[in-house]
């Protein structure tokens, strides 16, 4: 499926979605509240069938956090990037996609550890890399660490 057809199908699922085609993959912008039902449709619709979540990460844009999901369909060979905006930077929350793609478990643990995004309905949310009592979230832009020697 090419980008135009993908756009049509996605607009049917979520009319409020906006698109950006400048990059290698087409990006779909949604808000964090709409994430879970939208993702379920992407995974389950036969013509879309995004069954392979090959990268899940987060970007700290200072005023908001952006969750980035790279999706691929092994059967249809098309890719898409879903970006969900989290406006609350103090106490960010988003639904977990573990029920849809199992790889999300460790990825979301990592994002929770490094960005402090809380995933709702995650089976085992814990700090994956840093010790439990580590202060702050290292990959945030406002992270300060006295021991860190900056160049």
């Amino acid at each position: 499926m090419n980008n135009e057809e993908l756009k049509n199908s996605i607009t049917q699922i979520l009319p409020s979605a906006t698109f950006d085609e400048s990059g290698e993959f087409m990006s779909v912008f949604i808000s964090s509240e709409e994430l879970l039902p939208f993702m379920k449709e992407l995974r389950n619709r036969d013509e879309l069938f995004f069954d392979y979540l090959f990268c899940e990460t987060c970007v700290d844009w200072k005023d908001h956090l952006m969750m980035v999901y790279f999706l691929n369909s092994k059967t249809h060979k098309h890719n898409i990037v879903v970006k969900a905006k989290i406006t609350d930077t103090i106490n960010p929350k988003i639904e977990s996609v573990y029920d849809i793609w199992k790889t999300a478990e460790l990825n979301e643990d990592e994002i929770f550890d490094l960005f402090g995004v809380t995933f709702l309905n995650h089976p085992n949310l814990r700090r994956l890399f840093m010790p439990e009592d580590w202060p702050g979230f290292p990959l945030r832009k406002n992270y300060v660490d006295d021991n860190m020697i900056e160049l």
Partner: protein
Amino acid sequence: MGLKDKLEFPGQVHETPDGSFIVSQLDNLINWARANSMWPLAFGTSCCAIEMMHTVNAKYDWSRFGFEVMRATPRQSDLIIVSGTITMKMAPVLKRLYDQMPEPRYVIAMGACTISGGPFFYNTYSVVKGIDHILPVDVFVPGCPPRPEALLHSMMALQEKIKNEPYFRKAKEEAK
């Protein structure tokens, strides 16, 4: 003033600075045994561990020097080759491993990361900048990663160090 001038008559039993004859000979024996039978702990964290494995293999073959018995448990090993970066989370584990080893125990810091943090010195929040903050290190081996020859050299340097170590003499001094 030489030692000879101190003697009142020939054949007088005297204390040499290195202890008596038997004790220093035993020292030599023990040090020889220790130096030639260092069993390293099978411990590696990252890239340097691969070069350590290369040192085991046939081209470099550290079994020639008697280092070949790699024990998986710290209780049976004499030497810990810290090969690879040590992070803040790993540091307590490393310390614990070191504490579990029976005396005498030796530490080789292999690679730039263990010496100072190496490539991971600046802008990093989780790397220990040099394992000498945690353990007493006997030999440092620079390199990223060091060549197997460098590791062999460091182990031979450690052998030299052990051969000059007092065992009985130290105990005597502590008793004083």
